[in-house]
């Protein structure tokens, strides 16, 4: 399976990134090199092997179904992290218009 520069651009867009034209070749060839290596997994017959998403604990720990509201000061602090000070209005982060 060979990936083209076009494919890399499309994938980058899915990840909300925009690779500059001058770097596309490098990323494309590196991606192909890595995919070429991981192709070795196809040598294994895994038809009857269940997938392992992660190490799952045998018990699920539940907590009380009660809300825990953060202190107003904490909310202030979180909102203050916005990269631009004019990007906060009341309790909301503001963004450019989503639908034009």
């Amino acid at each position, binding site marked *: 399976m060979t990936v083209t520069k076009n494919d890399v651009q499309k994938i980058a867009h899915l990840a909300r990134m925009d690779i500059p034209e001058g770097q596309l070749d490098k990323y494309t060839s590196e991606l192909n090199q890595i995919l070429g290596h991981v192709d070795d997994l196809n040598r294994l017959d895994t038809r009857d*092997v269940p997938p392992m998403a992660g190490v799952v604990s045998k018990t699920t720990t539940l907590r009380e179904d009660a809300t825990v509201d953060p202190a107003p000061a904490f909310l202030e602090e979180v909102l203050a992290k916005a990269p631009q000070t004019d*990007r906060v209005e009341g309790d909301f982060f503001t963004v*450019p218009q989503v639908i034009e």
Partner: protein
Amino acid sequence: MSLTFETLASHRRHLDQKKYSAVELAKAYLDRIAATDERIGSYLHVCREIALSQATAADERLARGESTPLLGIPIGLKDIFLTQGIPTTCASHILEGYVPPYTATSAQRLLDAGAVLLGKLNMDEFAMGSSTETSYFKKTRNPWDLERIPGGSSGGSASSVAAGQCVASLGTDTGGSIRQPAALCGVVGLKPTYGRVSRYGVIAFASSLDQVGPLTRTVEDCALMLSVIAGYDGHDSTSNTAPVPDYAASLTKPAKGLRLGIPKEYFGSGIDPEVKAAVEAAIKQYDAMGVTCEAVSLPHTDYALSTYYIIAPAEASSNLARYDGIRFGFRDPEAKNLREVYEHSRTKGFGPEVTRRIILGTYVLSAGYYDAYYLKAQRVRTLIKRDFDTVFEKVDAILTPVSPTPAFKLGEKTSDPLQMYLSDIFTIPVNMAGLPGLSVPCGFTQTNLPLAFQLIGKPFDEATLLQLGHAYQQATDWHTRTPLF
């Protein structure tokens, strides 16, 4: 021996005996950092005033007669741990200037126990790397040879302990990022069982693989650090409720009679001869101590690297979606619309290795490729785990090399991603299976570069690893050597 090369256990005794105060100890480490870090580059941020005020508070607790292991002990934290009010960047431009509003559970437990925070340590950007060279801010150098890398991604966590710039540190390990730098810097490093230590407040890379662990001068110190950070945390849904044993108490249990498995797949070609010789000497040392060493097989070992480089980037592409320039971090001020806010902020904010892995991860999860890559890798992951389950029916722990080579030179592997990825072939399988792994120094090369072996254990059996590691350190003295730095 210089004060800042003493162990945690030794400082504990001296603080309790009032040989020096916590403030004096903190100052000694801060002075050491000031005198050495321009050349080594372990720290991204030193919090001098906070450290001194924490040390003052520790002295008050000591005066009231309190004597718990971490009280007054100066530590460093990899810059992946959120620390309230103290800058946290994950060594990335996209988090430059970010100051978290809360502290990671593992870090908080150390602080509550009276540890003194010296500062935040350098790492590979978003923990992606094996040499600390992908950090946006600076390179960290190996204290044993300043032309060489300290390993990664917890490079600063390892170099700071090795150079006497902190007593102990915390790092994180997703594919070897505690164990490999520990090995290359001649210090002890532990990746606990998945779920043993809370990941709350730890900037996420690959959520099914990431684990928090200590880097220390000795195995005994490691047991003391682990006792404080281990245990269930309701804030982390993957945190395990398994009880935490008394790691310090079980350290001195005799190792004689324990059974070690030596997997043949970890001793093939591609290992530096000096690494192989040092690890084989360690096996002989265990044999002399009455530990049975038998050959075992982990047949799917060679497939672990591929499995990792599908699963980890896939999970990373999901975890790093939150860096969008909206709520925190870097945002391109020239962005004219929402699409540009996202695309420009992320493209300018992330470095090349992070970009590479996001692209790879997005690709293997995309429609049409998900089954062939991601699902396939998850099935192979099951096979890797089963290999370990089978071997653990016959042995108590497994002994392997940590890194196939000693520390390599800065810039040596940066032009070929795959070459860099190969640094982790012996550490990755342990993360895939969620098992604990301990890196223990076991020698030096002809040019005085550290060498180490790895012990892999059964789930939640850190105690046996620490017991075996401690026994080795009672019979050898590699861990007492310090760099000429």
